């Protein structure tokens, strides 16, 4: 019980702060809480398949397979796969981090994990269609064409910045995630 309380401390503090806000400014507070409740509903709709898929991936796909397709020396194949998996995903960016942890456990190359994160954040296929509808195809296509090299560039710069020890530590940490 004490452990649970400690883990959810941040959430409880923010929740109490928002209830106080509601007491001060009723309209703003209820609006904020209403939107939060809505997002929780959305989360419950989108998140379960993401986590079940990552559970299945963790159990069924052997490490050797993942290393072969997306690990060190996987080259263009690894980059394309990272892009494809990230773009086919659904849900907000923070859903991508637990998946990244499983990728680390399975020995996926760090730069490919970063490409996957980049793709999940901006080149999601359903979002692209939505963007075309809202802001026009010129805007959406131009942004997509700029984003693809951008994501790769960011992934490579970042994997150069990180030392081997730092990446190893991160991978070690991912092993202890469950």
């Amino acid at each position, binding site marked *: 019980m004490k452990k649970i309380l400690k883990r*959810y401390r*941040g*959430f409880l503090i*923010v929740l109490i702060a*928002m209830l106080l*806000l509601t007491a001060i400014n009723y309209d*703003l507070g209820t*609006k*904020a*809480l209403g*939107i*939060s*409740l809505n*997002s*929780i509903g959305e*989360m419950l*709709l*989108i998140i379960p*398949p*993401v*986590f*079940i*898929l*990552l*559970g*299945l991936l963790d*159990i069924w796909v052997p490490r050797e397979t993942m290393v072969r397709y997306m690990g060190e020396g996987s080259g263009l194949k690894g980059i394309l796969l990272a892009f494809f998996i990230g773009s086919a995903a*659904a849900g*907000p*960016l*923070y859903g991508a*981090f*637990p998946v*990244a942890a*499983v990728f680390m456990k399975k020995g996926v190359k760090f730069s490919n994990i*970063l490409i996957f994160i980049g793709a999940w*954040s*901006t080149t*999601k296929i359903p*979002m692209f269609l*939505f963007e075309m509808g*809202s*802001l026009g195809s*010129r*805007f959406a296509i*131009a*942004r997509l064409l*700029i*984003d693809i090299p*951008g994501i790769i*560039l*960011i992934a490579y710069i*970042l994997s150069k910045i*990180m030392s081997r020890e*730092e990446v190893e*530590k*991160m991978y070690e940490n*991912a092993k202890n*995630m*469950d």
Partner: protein
Amino acid sequence: MDSYIFYGLTAVLLTLSFFKDKKKTKMALKKAWKAFENILPEFLVVILLVGLMLALLNAGTISKIIGSESGWFGVILASLIGSITLIPGFVAFPMAALLVENGAGYMQIAAFISTLMMVGIVTMPVEIKYFGKKATIGRNMLAFAFSFIVALLIGMVVI
């Protein structure tokens, strides 16, 4: 819509897994739950903050700040707003269209959308938990800088 496809795919794979090996399937579900519960406290904080943010901001307020006349100053402001806020895509794009209608410039909108999707100040605690401080801050800073390139190029292509 895409969530139906996702559910369908998950159901098919889960069924296949179940018929192949019940024990392994149970283990997979256990892992799924653990991975979810592990991050749930951070998720909840993010969701509350997003609710507050969306309650405070509306299209009128934002487009006043990042009008098409606002130039690079507007791009910087748009990037900052995009970095701090966390708005789901299906809200963000119609909102962006509304912002353009209300007088926001395409360059500024490009910076806003780009940082909105790639930079996450609110989600940083979640990201740090998996990637550590250095990689998280580095990724967010690079993505922030990249958004200016996106703004510049979009400004040249879309008029």
